[in-house]
């Protein structure tokens, strides 16, 4: 593929280099669509035949299949089938009109950090803005089914990183990924999403508002052409791009066996720093983090510590104080304060709270009174209710 991209200047002497590059990209776009998913071997086999434009010509004339070995005949047939009636310039133009652009590995705007990883993508389909080279970038990643603790910490880190002008890279997934990115954008920072589907598709659907915000104030990219539907096999390879685009990877929450750990492996392979947020030994969603720490990952317990490692002399907020939605510190008094002490990030049933209260303070508390105080905490944003009778600490960001 490198050969194709560097060979693009020949034969187009009269036109400007820019327009020529655009035209060549139209053919690259065609090639990626025509070859389909999972065609890395095939694309490598095509490399000796010339630029994508030349391959296009060979495909139409039927010369391509003659040159290819037996095992690629099927692919070649699919390609010529796809190319029949395909409008190369038109299809590319329509894509550009939708605000999606293509960056090849040979171009100067291709992210520098990504060029240095062992297996960089040949092209990136992007929308929005690409991350800036001069600024630090951190991948905030973690479980999709995160706990309230994970939600809170992801939000805190996202916000603090944004405020320290650090770019937040992640996969726009449910849970930690999306929360960290949302928080960064809300705080006025920059965030970049690496998708496992076409950049024109919002997956998961519930992250629509984040997706829109990324297009407006950040960016998204994918190595797959627009229109590619999300499929399970497409997601692990994109993790190398997440870590590749970042200077450090922060794991907020992960189970012992988690997809998040794929990204960590990639990061280690690429020589990036890995940080993990510690959790309790009993918490299954912190199992992965705790193991990473044992294996030598950096332990960070607040955004301040992470920023201290990344940059020098940056002060962040301390995370371990109850805060309201406005970020103000609140001082809880009396029964509410006592209740906040026995609440947990894991939701607890009321009778359990009643018993803990009795055990800890030696006083009984009647259910109606307990309900009233808990509700007061909920209304103040210091607690959350789940279902009819579960309460937990909720520190909303």
């Amino acid at each position: 593929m490198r050969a194709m991209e560097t060979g693009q200047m020949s034969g187009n002497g009269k036109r400007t280099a820019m327009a020529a590059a655009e035209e060549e990209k139209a053919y690259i776009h065609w090639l990626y669509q025509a070859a389909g998913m999972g065609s890395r071997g095939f694309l490598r086999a095509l490399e000796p035949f010339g630029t994508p434009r030349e391959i296009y010509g060979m495909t139409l004339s039927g010369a391509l299949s003659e040159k290819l070995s037996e095992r690629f005949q099927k692919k070649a047939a699919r390609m010529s089938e796809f190319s029949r009636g395909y409008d190369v310039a038109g299809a590319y133009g329509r894509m550009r009109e939708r605000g999606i652009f293509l960056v090849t590995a040979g171009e100067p705007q291709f992210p520098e950090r990504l060029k240095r990883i062992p297996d960089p993508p040949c092209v990136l389909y992007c929308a929005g803005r690409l991350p800036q080279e001069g600024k630090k970038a951190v991948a905030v990643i973690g479980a999709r089914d995160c706990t309230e603790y994970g939600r809170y910490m992801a939000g805190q880190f996202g916000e603090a990183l944004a405020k320290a002008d650090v770019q937040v890279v992640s996969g726009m997934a449910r849970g930690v990924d999306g929360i960290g990115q949302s928080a960064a954008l809300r705080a006025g920072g920059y965030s970049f999403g690496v998708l496992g589907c076409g950049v024109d598709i919002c997956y998961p659907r519930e992250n629509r508002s984040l997706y829109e915000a990324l297009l407006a104030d950040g960016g998204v990219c994918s190595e797959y052409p627009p229109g590619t539907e999300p499929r399970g096999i497409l997601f692990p390879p994109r993790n190398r791009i997440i870590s590749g685009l970042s200077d450090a990877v922060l794991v907020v929450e992960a189970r012992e066996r988690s997809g998040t750990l794929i990204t960590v492996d990639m990061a280690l392979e690429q020589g990036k720093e890995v940080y993990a947020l510690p959790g309790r030994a009993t918490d299954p969603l912190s199992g992965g983090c705790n193991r990473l720490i044992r294996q030598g990952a950096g332990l960070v317990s607040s955004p301040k510590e992470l920023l201290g490692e990344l940059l020098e002399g940056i002060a962040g907020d301390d995370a371990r104080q109850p805060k309201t939605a406005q970020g103000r510190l609140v001082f809880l008094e009396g029964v509410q304060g006592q209740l906040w002490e026995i609440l947990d990030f894991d939701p607890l049933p009321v009778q359990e709270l009643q018993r803990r209260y009795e055990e800890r303070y030696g006083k009984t508390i009647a259910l109606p009174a307990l309900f009233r105080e808990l509700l007061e905490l909920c209304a103040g944003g210091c607690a959350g209710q789940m279902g009819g009778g579960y309460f937990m600490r909720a520190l909303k960001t």
Partner: protein
Amino acid sequence: MFSTITSGAVYGVHSHLIQVEVDISQGLPCFQIVGLPGSEVREARERVKVALKNVGVRLPPMCINVNLSPADLPKNGTMFDLPVAVGIMTALGKVKQEAVDGTLLLGELGLSGELKPVRGVLPIAREGARQGIRRCVLPAGNAWEAALVGDMESIGVGNVKEAAALLAGEEISVPAPTAAPDEGAEKEEALDFSQINGQQGLKRAAEVAAAGFHNLLIIGAPGSGKTMLARRIPSVLPPLTAEESLEVSTIYSICGRLHAAGALRTIRPFLNPHHTITGRALAGGGRIPMPGVISLAHRGVLFLDELPEFKRETLDILRQPLEDKRVQIARSSGSYVYPADFMLVGAMNPCPCGFYPDRARCRCTPFEVRRYLNRVSGPILDRMDICVEAAPMAFADMTSGRREETSAQVRERVMAARKRQEHRFAGTGIHFNADMGAGDVERYCVLGETELRYMERMFSCLQLSARAYHRILKVARTIADLDDSAGIGEIHLAEAICYRQSDHKYWNGGGDAE
């Protein structure tokens, strides 16, 4: 050669008296029944013929015509066997017409002439009494049912010969109708709140629901005691009043489940249909409409275990009855109305595996959890006034040996709250706080200045919906009633708010990125 016998039939929960007219005249020998007889009624011919022969009454070779009047009502059931047989004997002059005037006859005949119990005796006897009939002759197994109706002499007989002898004025000894004790009641009394260890939150919610007859949704892991609690709810409900008892017994009589029980229902019914139940079995229906499970649960508890497993269409059938407190079934033969004023208790797991939010055991994705919860249709969830979480049992609770409150103790409080409601709603047709409409809520759930401000604050902080607001007020009214408080206080409102349905956003937990 002509006779008229009074009998009756049930339509929905209402009954009509039916005149059975028999005429025997010269002509080609025949035996026919007219007046829209259903197949059971048409078969009465054969049963009557054989039964009469076996008790020694020979039918003459003449033309026997039986008409069931009013002739435009479809007739179903086997209760016309006895009237037809007695009608023939009267037309043959073996029984005097005067002897059968003013007597209600019902009963199914066996081929030997013996009489078998039939369904719907209670409503028919009530209708008869209303129309001035003072005596009824019916199978011995049904006699006690008619005896429940005041001003009605109920005579139970063993076979058609006895019936004829009785009507002819002969002295025969028949046992006095006695009702057996309600066996169901005994069995249900064995279920007691004190058998549930711990689960204070759940029990409290059940108490509030019982006091105001609120619909209750219990969400919890398998084995957390959802079903155990639901089964014990009737034990804390106030007993049926005399009027309610008659209503409930009528429905059971129509379904033929009263004579089997052998007594008037005094305990509130508890019905827990399996989730494979069809819509027709739930709401009632059939070619010959019969009350469904929701009508059998009238004035009692309808418990739907594993709510999301019920077919959506089946659950949606409940929407109208939950609103109207009755179910209307229209068939080509007519439209039938069955009462269906029940307390709906639903139980469900929080997620497909059942352990959410315990992250150590539950590996369901937020998406799976949401899809599972969405299987229950919104309008049904909207009718749930109280939503409560059943937490897995703590070991300490199981072994604490603490004496738990008995149903009788809880029921005492419920009864006191019930008294307050009776007093409040006297003459309005409202039975319980849960029956209040939007207008009634405004009238009966007046908040003071401080409480209003409290609600305003909670409304904005917790993002409550307008729909939730009325539900909260109704439940708060019940909690205040339990507290024996005339006004609704903050503490009552707070508890009611905690029982609201968690909005789906929270359910998703770490779901969306917001």
